[in-house]
């Protein structure tokens, strides 16, 4: 239990151990710990970022889905409108066409009637002339009366 040179030896040994511990033990370990801490912090930050961007993406997709739905319903509405328009147009044009055909048919009928009247008239006048010729052959000169008969035919 005497104080002797061991004191100096122990002090030097302690100083050397301390130096070794600082240079080759403490610094690398504390650096590794700090690096790991940073990695974990970065990882957590990245995870939070990922979660955020997931939320944003979900919001965006919901928005675009809504937009698409809206657009689709707009298109359907437009198409329905257009369809009814087309039907209306078709109805209108059919009516016009029908009227046109009707008018044409009426005109044709009238023409036909007129033509028939004309031919009947000419036939009747021819018949009348033929009858009158037969009746009047004897007494009337056909030349003197044909002028009067043509006038009669025109009056019919």
């Amino acid at each position: 239990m005497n104080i002797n040179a061991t004191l100096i030896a122990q002090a030097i040994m302690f100083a050397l151990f301390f130096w070794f511990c600082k240079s080759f033990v403490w610094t690398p370990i504390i650096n590794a710990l700090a690096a790991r801490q940073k990695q974990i912090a970065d990882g957590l930050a990245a995870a939070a970022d990922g979660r955020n961007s997931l939320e944003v993406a979900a919001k965006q997709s919901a928005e675009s889905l809504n937009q698409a739905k809206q657009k689709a319903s707009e298109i359907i509405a437009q198409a329905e409108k257009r369809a009814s328009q087309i039907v209306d147009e078709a109805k209108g044009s059919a009516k016009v066409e029908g009227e046109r055909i009707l008018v044409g048919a009426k005109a044709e009928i009238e023409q036909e009637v007129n033509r028939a009247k004309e031919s009947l008239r000419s036939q009747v006048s021819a018949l009348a002339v033929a009858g009158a010729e037969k009746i009047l052959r004897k007494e009337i000169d056909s030349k003197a009366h044909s002028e009067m008969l043509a006038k009669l035919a025109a009056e019919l």
Partner: protein
Amino acid sequence: MTTETITSSEYIKHHLQNLTCNINAGHVQCAHSAEEAKKMGFWALNVDTFVMSFILGALFLMLFHGVAKRASSGIPAGIQNFVEWVVDFIDGSVRGSFSGKNTLVAPLALTIFVWIFLMNFMDLFPIDFLPKVAESFGFGHFKVVPSTDPNATFGMSFVVFFLVIYYSLKSKGLGGFAAELSMMPFQSKNPIIQALFVPINLILEGVNLIAKPVSLALRLFGNMYAGEMIFILIAIMGSTWAGFTVANITLFGSQIFLSLGWAIFHILIITLQAFIFMTLTIVYLDMAHQEHH
């Protein structure tokens, strides 16, 4: 111990004797008794303290350096977990008590804590186990617990004291440090009274300063020495064994149970003493770094 029967006081004395050796006339000789060791004077070496503390310190540094070499920021495993836990614990203690910016303090605290813990831990080995091994190699005395040698504890506390002085001078300057020693605790606005206070302050603060390394070293030494002494006393109980009598069996049984109980209690003491030495070192260095006391 030896073939001849020895008395209790001889047994105790033997256990408290370091393996003190010096070089005399070109060859190494070791003291066989306390008187011989005393006669060797200052220039002698307690080989047991030196060897044990070196082995323990080297063990600690090899283990921790092995981890430090492979230390990465990846997933830690096995021994790396343990080492990182210790490092983290020391780092937390230093952050808690040390307010300055000095990267030396934390590794110093780690060295002190683990080394002292390992030196104290030698106390938990069966008391005669390692000395018997040393005896078989021809060393008559061998104290296995380096921290029961005041040389070891004072050696550490002097290094700490040197660092305290160094950082006091560095951060406060020579004038600041001298003012801290002479202008406190008694202060007066009157310069004459202040001049009278200076010697009183110097004595008070001087004692305060010197008490730091002395108390550090003696606290550790005293606790470990007393603990060792109780182990020795418990070990004596069974040493009077002389056949199967009720008294002998009682003594022998008591030795087993008492040494077990004391060893379990001692686990607390050795850890606590290592921790106290470390914490006080941190606190002293923190005080050395503070510019205003």
